[in-house]
């Protein structure tokens, strides 16, 4: 199911390492990006074949890491930090607020598949807590007002 373009990208990754196997994590990233941000089993199998690894091995590795999505996620994946700094400056209230607005609980996706809401562990933005990550963007120093604006903005995309 992977395209020529994906394989070409994987080729450039392989060139960075002394072994093909080392290109596995980056190759899975490329495969995930090419598949609406999740990794179907067939995609993992294709990566395995291309790198000369057993499909079961690749699945074993992919399932170890939380950022490889093993099931489809919404177009905007909201990951709100709830670790020990964000927690004491309002993260839980924020998560409830977002859940209420979108009508989803933690780990759920809206029926229109636009949003998935998840909690995240420390995102390394503790000096600007609370914070969340949506795709490749960080939003920091969050307040409910700020979150409302962000959600409205994302809803249009």
């Amino acid at each position, binding site marked *: 199911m992977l395209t020529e373009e994906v394989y070409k990208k994987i080729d450039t990754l392989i060139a*960075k390492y*002394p*072994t093909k*196997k*080392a*290109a*596995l*994590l*980056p190759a*899975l*990233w490329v495969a995930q990006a090419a598949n609406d941000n999740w990794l179907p089993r067939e995609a993992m199998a294709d990566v395995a074949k291309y*790198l000369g*690894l057993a499909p079961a091995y690749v699945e*074993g*590795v992919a399932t*170890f*890491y*939380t*950022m*490889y999505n093993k099931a489809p996620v919404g177009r905007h994946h909201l990951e709100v930090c*709830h*670790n*020990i*700094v964000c*927690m*004491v*400056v309002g993260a839980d209230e924020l998560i409830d607020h977002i859940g209420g607005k979108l009508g989803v609980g933690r780990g759920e996706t809206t029926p229109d598949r636009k949003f998935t809401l998840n909690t*995240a*562990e*420390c*995102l*390394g*933005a*503790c*000096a*600007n*807590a609370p914070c969340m*990550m949506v795709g*490749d*963007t*960080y939003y920091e120093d969050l307040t409910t007002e700020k979150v409302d604006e962000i959600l409205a903005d994302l809803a249009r995309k």
Partner: protein
Amino acid sequence: MPSEQPQYLYKYRQVPGIDDIDVYLKHEGYNAVRKALTMDQEAIINEVKLSGLRGRGGAGFPTFIKWNGIPKNWDKPHYLVVNADEGEPGTAKDRDLMNALPHLLVEGCIISCWAIRSKACYIYIRGEYIQPARQIQKAIDQAYAKGFLGKNILGSGFDLDMYVHMGAGAYECGEESALMSSLMGERGMPRHKPPSAPLPVISGVWDSPTIVNNVETIATAVPIINMGGAEYAKVGTGTPGAGPASRGTKLITLSGHVKKPGNYEIVLGTPVREIIYEIGGGIKNDKKLKFFIPGGSSTPLLPPEFLDTPYDYEALGKTGSLLGSGALIVYDETVSVPALMTRLMHFYAHESCGKCTPCREGTNWLVKIHDRIMAGGGRPEDIDLLLDISNNIFGRSFCALGDAAAMPLAGFFAGKGAIYYFREEYEELIRN
């Protein structure tokens, strides 16, 4: 910020566009590389020794000893792997450094690689840090374009390639042996350590001598080479060369209930009180300080009577806590210790890689008992049970993640952790 805090890493942090090589070059950029390439390996390592630099990733191991461990032989490949997995809750300094000063890290890598005779450097960046990774990749590309990377760097005959490698979400991958496994395309599980297996400096990635250092450790090579190790070591605590000392500056992440949270460069030994009340502007909303966590989530919390502790490795060690990764988290009187510990135990249980029983099973028990106490079903014997489980994890787990889960609750010596200082809060929850 109090003016007496010299800024070695953050010297040009406020310069607009400092993440771009042209601006960076106008501010002493790559001077340290030029200088280092005229020095031999021993001379560089000697400057690092004089500087007193200790690993900024948390363990505080003397950097020069690690670098000296690399076999002195050019034929076998050597690797530098930069640990940019920053996952310790409370820690945000490496992300900040990579975003704001990417060339400082790239420059530090070049110096370090030269010192340890490595022709390849991998920067292992946690999966969430997409923006920092872009900054680093841009800096790498610019450095290649200016001849600071690639073949025959500045005519020295030294070749070096540098690569960014993204993690994919696993706290455990910050542990250096797990990180090496992950870099090689495996699950991020730790490997055996001495005496049953060689140190990474002898056999690390791809069975080759490997140095794993934290982002900040490597970046600090730049001011050390620019100013000289002895000059760098002029500030700090302890006597250089006479037992453990904390010399130079440290990046800290100050967070939680302070008025001015942020990433700051402080001189090692600055009293915690000064950091919280002067640099951080005091407690938010002028509430009362209840406790602080000095060095990231793995380090035991300390009540206000420790406010005058100098922020250095030795003094914080003596309190029964640790300097760790430099994450100083401040908590006001509204915070419930059992609730905070419950969240933390969920974190460690979630991040336990599952390789060894004490950590895999123990962290789940710490979660279960905390959950039942929080839900109102706690039993009086639960508190001692928590201590007992923690003590069974501590020192018995395969890697330091298990210890990191046990320490916040039970402390690591004299048993001074959250339960020691705030036992009555647990008791009260159980009574009611």
